[in-house]
């Protein structure tokens, strides 16, 4: 049945300020309400962070994202020029070098970030999915890098496809994921896996914004930096 809705007046409705009790009829409206409630703009793009977000360890997450940007840009240049270009052009070889080294930096930053987050127990306070998406991003990145080694179209890619086939064949995956099929590996490397990594990293970052950066282990309401600012209702709730 079709709902007839009134035209919004100049003071109502399409603003994020629309009250939470406002009735939404469409999937789109309900999705918008959920998104604005879960991740309002000031939470998505904050201008402040808790005082404890002050350590060199926080650099590595952003370093990984910055490396991913450089990795994607260099990969796009390589992809636009075709698989053999970098063997024939000195500029192409240089771009290939930037692709290799940005991948190395990406993994370096990501691994330090991961270990840092482990020792910070960053899953605390409802952040389980943030942790899991981080590990999944790491695993998907390994797949993306592996297929990159396979599509170099040189001796290294020849050898890796020969040697690594035993692992994928032993799991049965090799029947559909043929490492010596360079056309198939190109599709995985320049389309499917980059999309997967980008999507998982985006979800990971959004979850960080939703939940905020985790507080130090054993942080308590009696700490100097919290003592004067804690909302009393939270104490009441915690006592129940």
């Amino acid at each position, binding site marked *: 049945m079709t709902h007839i809705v009134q035209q919004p007046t100049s003071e109502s409705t399409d603003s994020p300020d629309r009250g939470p009790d406002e009735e939404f009829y469409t999937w789109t409206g309900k999705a918008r309400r959920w998104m604005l409630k879960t991740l309002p703009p000031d939470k998505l793009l904050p201008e402040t962070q808790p005082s404890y977000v002050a350590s060199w360890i926080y650099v590595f997450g952003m370093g990984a994202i910055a490396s991913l940007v450089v990795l994607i840009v260099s990969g796009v240049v390589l992809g636009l020029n075709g698989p053999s270009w970098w063997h024939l052009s000195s500029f192409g070889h240089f771009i*290939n*070098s930037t692709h290799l080294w940005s991948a190395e930096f990406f993994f370096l930053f990501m691994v330090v970030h991961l270990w840092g987050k482990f020792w910070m127990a960053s899953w605390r306070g409802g952040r389980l999915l943030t942790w899991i998406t981080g590990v999944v991003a790491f695993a998907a990145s390994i797949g993306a890098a592996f297929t990159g080694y396979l599509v170099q179209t040189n001796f290294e890619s020849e050898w890796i496809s020969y040697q690594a086939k035993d692992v994928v064949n032993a799991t049965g995956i090799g029947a559909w994921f043929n490492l010596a099929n360079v056309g198939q590996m190109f599709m995985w490397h320049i389309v499917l896996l980059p999309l997967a990594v980008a999507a998982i990293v985006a979800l990971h970052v959004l979850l960080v914004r939703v939940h905020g950066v985790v507080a130090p*282990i054993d942080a308590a309401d009696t700490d100097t930096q919290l003592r004067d600012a804690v909302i009393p209702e939270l104490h009441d709730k915690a006592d129940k």
Partner: protein
Amino acid sequence: MSKQLSAMSWRKGNGVAGRPWNGAKREYDLFKELTVGVIVVSLLVVAVSAIFSSPDDKSVTLKSWANSQPNDFVVTTNAELGHTSDSAGYGPPYNSTTDASQTIGALDLQSLAGVKIPIDSAKDFVIGPLSTLPNTPAAVSTWKAASSAQQTAWTDAYGKALDTAKGDPAAVASGNYGPVPAITGELLTMAKQGSLDSVLNAGGSFYNFNYTRSMLFLGDSAYFTDLATSLHLTGDQWGMINGIGYYPGQSWLWMFSLFYQIEPFKSLPNADLVIILIVAALTMVLMIVPLIPGLRDLPRLIPIHRLIWKDYYKRR
């Protein structure tokens, strides 16, 4: 009364970690940090690329193999013809050789997937390519007309003779090898001229994206493995994480590679299956660390977080 949550729990709870921070704050500029990050990493990558460049060892071909090591080519071709090469007896997904797949007990994922990329080494690597020649050698017709037992007898005899002659076809003593020496010689000529590469890969069509046949044929040779060994790329040389020369490879696979260096794993007939399952299980454990009491408590027991949040704890 609600159950007290562990301080290391992933659950939201009512603790400081589970609710919005209401304490002291510092200024933060996400876009500025991202911009600075991209600029710094770009400069770093450009500098390292300019200094160290990247490796690019030219690919080898059937032509380069046949020209640089013709004897090895003939020995390998005889093995393909007699179905005694690694590829011929590989099992799924290339062929259905009995008991060739890697299993753990009843778990046989390799056979479950089936023969999806069928390879008959004699037909696909040797007889098929020779049949594409404008004047198909008479030896091919003789081979095709012979029984399977006769074909096996010829290749066995020729293989033994090549062994005795240390792999040199010119030094092989006379014997009953049927058309095998002629066939291996014709294929060697075809490979030396370069036509075998295109015939094997493209199979007569203009386009090719799939190098399975060439890769398997090359992989059966001593030439290909010796090259990889000289570059420290084989599995037992940490090849998985080595790049060509001094370049770093996939160093993030260090744990995967480690299992191929240590007993009992490296000598297992099903090493690939066992090791990938162990690595998959360890990855899964890493993924669910927050759910595992003991493991998730490590960050509290080993107080590295005291260094990370040094300023916070100092001002508590």
